[in-house]
């Protein structure tokens, strides 16, 4: 009984920590992105609210929270609100299966720094990734606007294509590790002393593309396409309801998918012990934010594709490549 209580308590604490940290970091990522975009674009970015504009996310949040709530006429109210939930929830759930470090003992209890160490973790990632698109589709459908509708349909088309590619690109890693548990995959890399990016470079590149497509970042941000669709699927949302969509898609999702990329390809928390006891966590965060930085960097540099081009590349180029990669990996792994 006490064991159950203790593990429940530990889980609750872990959930709260993950939620608190990543919602907060997600909000501050807006500040980081604006600052980064500013410097890329030869301007300064936010600098007036607080030192270095550090309080800007708070000001933005306050503004969004105090805005009038407007629901368009003829909107499907239930689905309209449900879309907001469906946008955030899967993005947060993704963090449940991410191991941030090796297990350690605290007061005689073994603690794993992962919310749910399940043996089908990678499958869960696919599942939540696919669920995420419902937020977009519902918002486009429910808000009774043609722009939103077209935007959400574009996104759906992209997600369908890229979920498949994502699955096949990750399959190679699963074959090598022999497990679907995220902790197991990291352990496999640590035991071999090699990150899987060395064995699976093509899969890693494909994964990066899928990550951009799933999170709707440039060059795959067709569901927003502000010039054509006036920000597309979320155009009819106001206040914090509007704020939730970019937060979920652009920040939480990018962070979660980067973390999973780190787990799958970049050896998770492994790295030289140069930061003392916090070393594994710091390594994990460094790798993760390196990827996040890469995504933001692309966002402020590249133009955007067309919807039909994206799906075309996905089905005609990336999928055959991913399948080929899996087949070759399987053969090599079996015979060598």
């Amino acid at each position, binding site marked *: 009984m006490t064991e159950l209580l203790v593990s429940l308590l530990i889980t609750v604490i872990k959930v709260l920590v993950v939620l608190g940290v990543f919602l907060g970091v997600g909000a501050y990522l807006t500040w980081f992105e604006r600052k980064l*975009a500013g410097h*890329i*674009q*030869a*301007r300064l970015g936010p600098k007036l609210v607080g030192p270095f504009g550090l309080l800007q996310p708070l000001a933005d949040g306050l503004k969004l929270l105090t805005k009038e709530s407007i629901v368009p006429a003829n909107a499907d109210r239930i689905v309209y609100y449900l879309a907001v939930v469906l946008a955030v929830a899967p993005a947060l759930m993704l963090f449940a299966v991410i191991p941030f470090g090796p297990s350690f003992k605290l007061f005689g209890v073994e603690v794993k720094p992962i919310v749910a160490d399940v043996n089908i973790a990678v499958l869960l990632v696919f599942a939540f990734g696919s669920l995420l698109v419902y937020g977009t589709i519902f918002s486009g459908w429910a808000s009774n606007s*043609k*722009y939103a509708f*077209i935007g959400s349909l*574009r996104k759906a088309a992209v997600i369908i294509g890229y979920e498949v590619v994502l699955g096949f690109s990750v399959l190679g890693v699963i074959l090598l590790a022999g497990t679907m548990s995220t902790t197991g995959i990291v352990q496999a890399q640590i035991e071999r002393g090699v990150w899987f990016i060395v064995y699976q470079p093509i899969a890693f590149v494909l994964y990066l593309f899928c990550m951009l497509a799933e999170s709707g970042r*440039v*060059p795959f*941000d*067709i569901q927003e*396409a*502000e*010039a*054509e*669709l*006036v920000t597309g699927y979320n155009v009819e949302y106001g206040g914090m309801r509007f704020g939730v969509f970019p937060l979920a898609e652009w920040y939480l999702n990018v962070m979660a998918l980067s973390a999973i990329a780190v787990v799958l390809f970049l050896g998770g928390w492994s790295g030289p012990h140069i930061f003392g006891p916090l070393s594994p966590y710091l390594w994990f965060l460094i790798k993760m934010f390196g990827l996040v930085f890469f995504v933001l960097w692309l*966002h*402020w*540099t*590249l*133009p*955007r*594709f*067309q*919807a*039909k*081009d994206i799906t075309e590349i996905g089905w005609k180029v990336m999928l055959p490549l991913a399948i080929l990669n899996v087949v070759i990996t399987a053969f090599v792994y079996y015979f060598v």
Partner: protein
Amino acid sequence: MPWMNKVSADRVKQEFKEVEVEHTEHTTNLHVKKEKLLELLSFLKNREGYRHFIDFSCIDFPDRKERFQGVYILYNPDENERVIVKTWAKDGKLPSLQNLWACAKWAEREAYDMFGVEFEGHENLRRMFMWEGYPYFPLRKDFPLEGIPEVELPSLTELMHGRTEPPSHDYELLHTRVATLEDLERTEKARLQKKAQLVLNWGPLHPGTHGTIWFLFDLDGENVVQCDVILGQLHRGMEKIAENLHYFQFLPYTDRMDYISAICNELAYVSAVEKLLGVDVPEKARYIRTMFAELQRINSHLLWLGTGALDLGALTVFLYAFREREKIMDIIEGNAGFRLTSAFLSIGGVHYDLAEGTLDVVKAFVKDFPQRLKEYHQLLTRNRIWLRRTKDVGVITREDVFNYGLTGPVARGSGVPYDIRKLEPYAAYDEVEFDVPVGEVGDVYDRYLVRMEEMVQSLRIVEQCVSKLEKLPKSAPYINREHPAVMAPKEEVFKDLEDMVKNFRIVVHGEKAPKGEVYVSGENPRGELGFYIYSTGDSKPYRLRIRSGALYNLSIFPKLIEGRTIADAIALLGSLDPVVGETDR
């Protein structure tokens, strides 16, 4: 640009006995009866090589029996000659040219909208700028400048608290008619019969249209099945205003047409008026005009580059382009006192002499800008995504260039070297060296490359102007003071009684222009901006027709977008680069 040569005119005379050839001081006109008009025009197009449609409009003579005169301006690209064809509308009707030149449809709709002239055989004779159901024809001479007050528009206070006695505001309650929502809905319904799945309204206020254009897309999935454009949200009746102003007074209004290239507009306008009035421009003024017009062209192309890239999702290019644009704005502001609508030129010269240090700043800009251009090229030109979005999108053939009256970079992108600066040099363009870049395929990418290269050529011109201006003495005149129609510079007016009297006379009475007509055009960043002035010897033009390059360039848009996606629409529109101030006027 020369007008129709004698040999061609004789051939026309031989073929059509009743055609009257009139050589005026500045133009060559063919007068033809309405019945023979189509025959003559197709003869000119197919046999004489007048393939390029420049402009069509009407002139209203309320005192005559056949009230409206149609004026067609055509261009022969092989011989580099223009001709004007005139005809009288019988019973207010003219034949439509839609089978000869596709863009004539828009020009005819505009004439129908403004004059009420009907066009026989026009497939879609709708109002161009005004809404469906608007009862008047504003450019007719009997339509008053201030409009016809007939609609009561009470103030908000009055609506909320009821009428007060005496009224809370001291203003006329009756106003000219404005379009109501029902009017707009009727306009929309009349334009497009839905064939496919859904009709997407793009505009009147939409970030992709760069202004207040209203596109209607009939969509099948993401593919555009048919498209129509509703213009007129920015229609201010420039041509009507011009008829009621002295020549010099209209100058600031030209700034507000294509507000991104104000100085180029002014240059085209003053060139036309100077030709009509016979004003010589001193050398220094010509070079200053050329330099600023080219700076303005770079400025305009930078805006096109920035917003065009922004539309395709490249967010950073926008700010890079605006950084350089700001420098040009500063140069213009330092000389004209204004940044956007500068009113820098004046009839007979320029408003002010060069400000101190201008040439140094321009030199610094000329030195620095090639590096920046390289940056833009690095970001876009070989970018795979950029290529995918722009290559083979919206291909315009050479035939279509002539059929749709396309000019400017849009025509040059399709390989037609139509550049007024070379063909009919104005200002100092005949004294500077530059090349005219042309494209091969005529797609969005070619138009992009043409505009990028034009910036390089403009820079070359600016450089030559600077070295010329440096050699000229500081005291050289920048305005032709001798001519009676030219206003004296401001500082002289305060010191000199004679100048004050002269300015007083011009401001109050205006300077009478000789009788006649003139068509002069300038090479604007958005195509040929032409001014057709018909003068009856008054100090105000009897009719001033503005030929807008942007309007004609836009006229091909519905054709190009058919069967393509809305994502292409944005790339295409960016490459045609219309400015609503000029399309609507």
